[in-house]
């Protein structure tokens, strides 16, 4: 990653429930993200990948707590920020996209209002200038400007995710966090959304942190990949290296359960008992 601007550095991040401070949900996680690059965090449900993303934004649920670790963004430690300071980071300098395009939009507000909201809050845009900017954003994500007055229920799942993307990039953030943004979508729509995200990332030179459980998606979008298992990063590196010669047994196991389209490779579910032995 030499020669590129380091955007984010996560150092020794650990997360525990308030009630059980010995139960490490995220255990000593460290990674970096550079401008114009995509880092994927891949792992199963419960591996701690979404918690890691939430912790970066200071959005951990109240029952959980960051035990240790720093989140350096542009050289500043976000964990030392007050909640007012964080509001200025969220949505403005770091954009977010979530998994469920059905539930993350407000059903009673039209698309143009929802996209415009962060522009008004963060950049003070109103009136004509706001309308023009919203129309431009819709066009960027591939939605006709006439749909600005549409409500979420009038849009398909893929279009809603495009609206979410328009909202997240509205303030031209330096970094984008995408938490399983295509999991609820059809494969064809998924391919379109992945292509759109990759294009926006390059054009705007954003750093993208992309969370997924599917190594197929990793292969399509990642520059670097971090494999998470039971709260820890067990393997990390450039995507070609990790896919080409996976070192950790868990990475190999996770790759083995992705069905290959040629149908040559037998499906192999993860043998957790065996993994426990290897880990021990």
């Amino acid at each position, binding site marked *: 990653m030499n020669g590129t601007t380091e955007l984010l550095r996560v150092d020794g991040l650990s997360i525990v429930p308030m009630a059980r401070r010995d139960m490490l949900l995220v255990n000593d996680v460290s990674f970096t993200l550079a401008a114009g690059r995509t880092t994927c965090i891949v792992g*199963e449900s419960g591996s701690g990948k979404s918690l890691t993303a939430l912790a970066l934004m200071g959005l951990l649920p109240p029952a959980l707590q960051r035990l240790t670790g720093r989140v350096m963004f542009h050289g500043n430690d976000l964990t030392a920020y007050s909640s007012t300071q964080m509001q200025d980071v969220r949505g403005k300098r770091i954009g977010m996209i979530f998994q469920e395009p059905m539930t993350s939009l407000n059903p009673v507000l039209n698309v143009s209002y929802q996209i415009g909201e962060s522009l008004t809050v963060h950049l003070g845009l109103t009136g004509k200038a706001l309308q023009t900017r919203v129309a431009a954003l819709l066009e960027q994500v591939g939605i006709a400007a006439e749909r600005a007055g549409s409500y979420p229920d009038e849009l398909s799942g893929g279009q809603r995710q495009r609206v979410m993307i328009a909202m997240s990039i509205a303030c031209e953030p330096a970094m984008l966090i995408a938490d399983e943004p295509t999991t609820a979508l059809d494969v064809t729509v*998924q391919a379109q959304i992945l292509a759109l995200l990759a294009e926006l990332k390059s054009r705007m030179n954003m750093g993208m942190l992309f969370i997924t459980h*599917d190594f197929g998606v990793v292969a399509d979008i990642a520059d670097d990949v971090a494999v998470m298992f039971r709260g820890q990063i067990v393997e990390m590196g450039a*995507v070609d290296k990790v*896919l080409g010669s996976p070192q950790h047994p868990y990475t190999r196991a996770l790759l083995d*359960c992705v069905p*290959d389209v040629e149908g040559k490779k037998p499906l*192999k579910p993860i043998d957790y008992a065996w993994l426990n032995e290897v880990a021990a």
Partner: protein
Amino acid sequence: MSECILSARGLSKTYRQRSGRFGFGANVIKALDNVSIDLKQGATLGIVGESGSGKSTLARCLLQLLPLDAGEVQFEGRNLALLSGAQLRIARRHLQMVFQDPFASLNPRMKVAEIVGEGLVIHGLGDADERREKIKRMLQRVGLSVEDMDKFPHQFSGGQRQRIGIARALVLEPKVVVCDEPVSALDVSIQAQILLLLKELQQEMGLSYLFISHDLRVVRHIADEVAVMHCGRVVEQGTVEAIYAHPHVEYTQNLLNAIPGRHRLAGATV
């Protein structure tokens, strides 16, 4: 060539959607347009297509859960539409379904034993002890334990719930199981487990599957034949090997090209 257990000829189904001012107008949507398919005894027929292509409507029409506008469905040589209510109930024991959403398809107020055993009660199969024994064996077979019988659905993970859904369908010893996107809500690692379980059960119980999915990677591993649906029509049909190697229709090619990591993952894994 084995014989057909379920075959459909010329199925058509339209939905009317209100439109225009005050909903006085109506759009007619052709959900199924002259669809014919054959499911062979002991085999798996994959139905693939995008959202809105008519896959799930087809599943519901095949099981007579939705009335057809035209066409007929034959199960073991008998036209399902001509069966009386009582006869249809008997036939339904052999036509079971596994649903997509493991969270929405299980009644949260029922214990696992009740969920899995409900079909046995409805079809009057065995007395209470025999039923309990059957439920127990089925749960163990799908990888759950006896203790799970008295738990509620919310105490299980997504993958475990899908196992409960499979147990519920298979405890009746059906002949045909319609699986409507049974793994698309699951993590890839859990997906592999459920797919292998479905395959094993098919062999053991001689089941025939109609397997609906938008994910061609999954279908490649479970199906013998595939029907590709687009806008309510079957646009291409054939063996898995033939369709994946030489798709004739552009729509099928697009579906294949959309598979994530297709090029980079091929040969990359050990």
